[in-house]
Each structure stands twice: as structure tokens, then as C-alpha cells.
């Protein structure tokens, strides 16, 4: 149907068995694609956080379980997971911008401790209603 061929006139149109088979195949393919697409674009809140230091993945945590742990480096960050959210709740870095970043839970959001070269990134990509970036 994307070809440049003229659509047959009403009277010429005949629905044949072969057409039915082809149509069925197209429907199947389309449904498969749609299913793929829908599962790929999941939304909601993030289930897991990946923690990077110096660009290397150093830890993965589930937001489903409350936890508290340390990230050692040039400085020391205390990371807290509580009620499906995550934050750096303590740090001996200058300025403590990471602690001031507060709690995050939405897919794609992140908290950074620049002096300790740490990034906590929530899995997934931002939902359609969420922002692509925050300018601060």
C-alpha cells in the first residue's frame, strides 16, 4: 500500500485467498511491533539505581529495599535508599552539593557528587511527561 500503484477501482476489487494470507501476515507483524514498542517505553518510577564512580559502574541497588551504605573515594558519600527513593544523605566533600540535591525516584534522574566523581543514576528513560533536562 505504500507503492505508487493506483488503488484499484471499486469494481475491479476482488478479495482473494492470497490477499487474506498476506493481510494476516501484515497484521501479525504490526502487532508484534506494537508489543515491542509498548514494552520498550515503560514509565512509572525507577526500580533500580546504578552507581558510577570515575565513569565505572561500581554498584547496582534496588529501590525496593531500604538500605544505607558508603561510597569511598577521595571523599565519602553516605547513600540512603528509603521508600523507593534514593539520596546522598551525608558527605564530607566541600560544599555538599550532592546532599543538597535531595531525593530522586523518577527514571533517568541522577544525583552527582562532583568532588567524589560519583553519579547515582536511576534506570530507565524519562517518561513523556517528565523533563529531558533541568537547568539550574
Amino acid at each position, binding site marked *: 500500500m505504500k507503492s505508487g500503484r493506483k488503488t484499484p477501482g471499486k469494481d475491479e476489487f476482488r*478479495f482473494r485467498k492470497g*490477499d487474506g494470507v498476506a493481510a494476516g501476515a501484515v*497484521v501479525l507483524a504490526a502487532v508484534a511491533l*506494537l508489543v515491542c514498542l509498548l514494552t520498550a517505553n515503560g514509565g512509572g518510577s525507577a526500580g533500580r539505581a546504578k552507581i558510577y564512580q570515575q565513569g565505572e559502574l561500581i554498584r547496582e541497588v534496588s529501590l525496593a529495599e531500604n538500605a544505607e551504605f558508603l561510597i569511598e573515594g577521595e571523599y565519602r558519600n553516605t547513600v540512603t535508599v528509603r521508600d523507593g527513593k534514593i539520596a546522598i544523605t551525608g558527605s564530607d566533600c566541600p560544599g555538599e552539593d550532592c546532599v543538597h540535591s*535531595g531525593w530522586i525516584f523518577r527514571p533517568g534522574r541522577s544525583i552527582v557528587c562532583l568532588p567524589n566523581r560519583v553519579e547515582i543514576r536511576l534506570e530507565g528513560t524519562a517518561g513523556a511527561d517528565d523533563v529531558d*533536562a533541568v537547568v539550574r
Partner: protein
Amino acid sequence: MRRKIPAVMLAVLMGVCALGLTGCAAKEKIKYQTTFLNLFDTVTSITGYEESEEAFNRTAARIHDEMEAYDHLYDIYHEYPDTVNLCTVNRRAGETVTVDRRIMDLLVFARQVDEFSGHRTNAMFGAVLREWHEAREYGISSPENAYLPDGEKLRAAEKHTGFDLIEMDEESCTVRITDPEASLDVGALAKGYAVQKVSETLPEGYLLSVGGNVVATGPKPDGSLWTIGVADPEKNGETYLQKVGIGKGTVVTSGDYQRYYVVDGTRYSHIIDPETLYPGTKWRGVTVICDDSGLGDALSTSLFLLDRETGQELLNRFGAKAMWIDADGKLLFSDGYERMGMDHEEDITGLGCTDSHLHRGGRAAGWNQPDDQGRDRGKRQPGHDGNLRKATSGCRQL
């Protein structure tokens, strides 16, 4: 009737196929994101739509390398092996130094910014900014011993500022700071200028965020705009003040909450007003929307230090838009500033993450109220129109 059934079936099939095809098209390019923490002393985040992760990673690596080259060239605090950068130019004040074309172009741009901002955004203000930088760094690492720069010292340093203390030859790509006490500080411009230049080499569908600068290279593959949240100075976590949409262009914020330190309970921001030699206090923050991030950087810093009317004149001249946040948190908008949806997103985290460090402090003793009738205001508007001359010089990239 017999004929109708196949016709209806065909219509349904076409619909399903069309959906399937859109599915195909949307699936072709997927959104990827990565972050770098080693550029311009801030967080760089790259978002892009690509057909594969490999393609995205290649582009992200190239962006990183180009940004790193700019970062090293524009660094005023460190020198790098085999690189003549702005730190070198400052250290060798008095001598003629041959520089990379990217340095020359930035300095030519900086000189134009100095002129149109009435010297509010002055890259030859290093002598004064150095005093504040030292005090701030010390105050951040050792809050209990935080101090303010000495007023006498600031006034003495002010004598060694201004673009008449630097000679620039665009043809030979040489610069010479004529006063050994004077120095360049491009902190208000370099980041925006660099991210703009790098963004110009990218395909559509990329979003770069470098500290307070966000640049979009064109709309998303489905044609929709990028949604940018403007942070709330009083809040943190996932909250933001409002959303703006951009296809191709930049959103830049200058705020007193970005970099600051505290002395005796009063917060001192990193944006120093050349009129008073102290941090600007007219606004909490200014967000500028325009089509060039170098210009956006210059405008947001200038507007942060200017009254609203003078700021609006600058915006008109460059066809830019802005939002000001005043001392009480009230929002003021320039003509044409369009918001998406509501302001003040609720604090949905519900964990009470309001930051006690972000309270608004009083004024320091000896404070000079910035003079709205600044001595240079309106006097030194260059004659040419709003379009900045493209900073191009004959010299080569070293």
C-alpha cells in the same frame, strides 16, 4: 455487502499497518544518555536519539573529547603539557603569546560581550575575581574560617581590570596582557561558548547540558520539543519551578544558588558585580532562552547584574527571552517567554528536602548598594546592530 467486508477489512489493516510502521519509525532511534564529571568543573549530561548504542557512544565520546579540549584551553587555573591555554596567557602577562584559534575566537567574543554588557560581563576582571575565588574556595572547604576579601585589596585589584589592558591580534593569533597584575577570567562565558561550538557539529536530536547551560541541536526524531525544567532556587530533589520547550536553541541560567559560600550566615554568590566589587544581589536567578549558548551565558550573567529595564533592552537587541527570579522568589517574564504547563511543581518527594543552606542572608557590613545608574550604562553601546560579528580570525587551530 459482500464487497463491503473486504473494504472494511482493508481499512482496518491499513490502520494497523500504519501504527506498525510508526512503531518501526519510533523504534529506529532510541534515546540514550550519558554523563561526564570531568569537564568545566561541572556535570555534563548528553542525551541523544540514535539507531544504536554504539552510534550514540561514538558521538558522546567525540563530544567529550572536544569539550575537554575547550576546557583545557580555557582553564585559567591549571596548565597542561604541550598546551598554551589561558592560564599560560595570564602567567606570561607582559609577553606576547601565540594562542590557539579557539582561544582567539573566545577572546574576540568576550570583548564584544564586555562592550554590550556595559562591562558587567568582563573577561578582563580576573584581578578582582581571583580574590573572590580564593576566599570562596577556602570558605567552602573550611566553613568555620570563611572570610570576605579585603575591601582595600578589591579596590586595588580593580585598577588592573579592563580590556584596554590586553592587546589582541586576530591575524597573527597573538595576545599580550600589558599589565602584569591583570588577568583573564572567562568563567562567565567559556562553558557556554564551548558547548555552543560543539553542539554545532552535532546532528539534530541531541541535548547537551553543561552546568547551567542546556543546548538542543534540533527537535526529537518525532518532531517534538525538548522539555527543560528550570530549577527552583529554594528547592531541590526532583522539583523545578517550571518547564520550557526548545527545539533548536539554548536555555541558560545564572543564579546566586549555583556557586556560593557563607560568611557569618550570609551567602555570597560567585557572580561579582564590577560596579560594587561584591556579589550581585538584584536577582536570585535569571534564565535566558536564545539561539546561541555563548550569548546566552553572557546575557544571563549580564542580566543577573542589571536592572530589569536595561536587561530587557539587551534581550530586545539579541531577540532573546528571559525570566527573572527576584529576592522574594517572584517570577518576572520578558516578552515572548513561553512556559509549558504550570509553574511550581509540587514537592512530590514528600521528604521535606528544602535546603536550609539556601536561606537568603542579610547584607554584609560595608555593603555598597549596586547603583542602577551604573557609570557606564547607556554610554558605551557599540554602534553596530544586535548581531554579533562572527568571531573568526585568520589564525589556525594549534
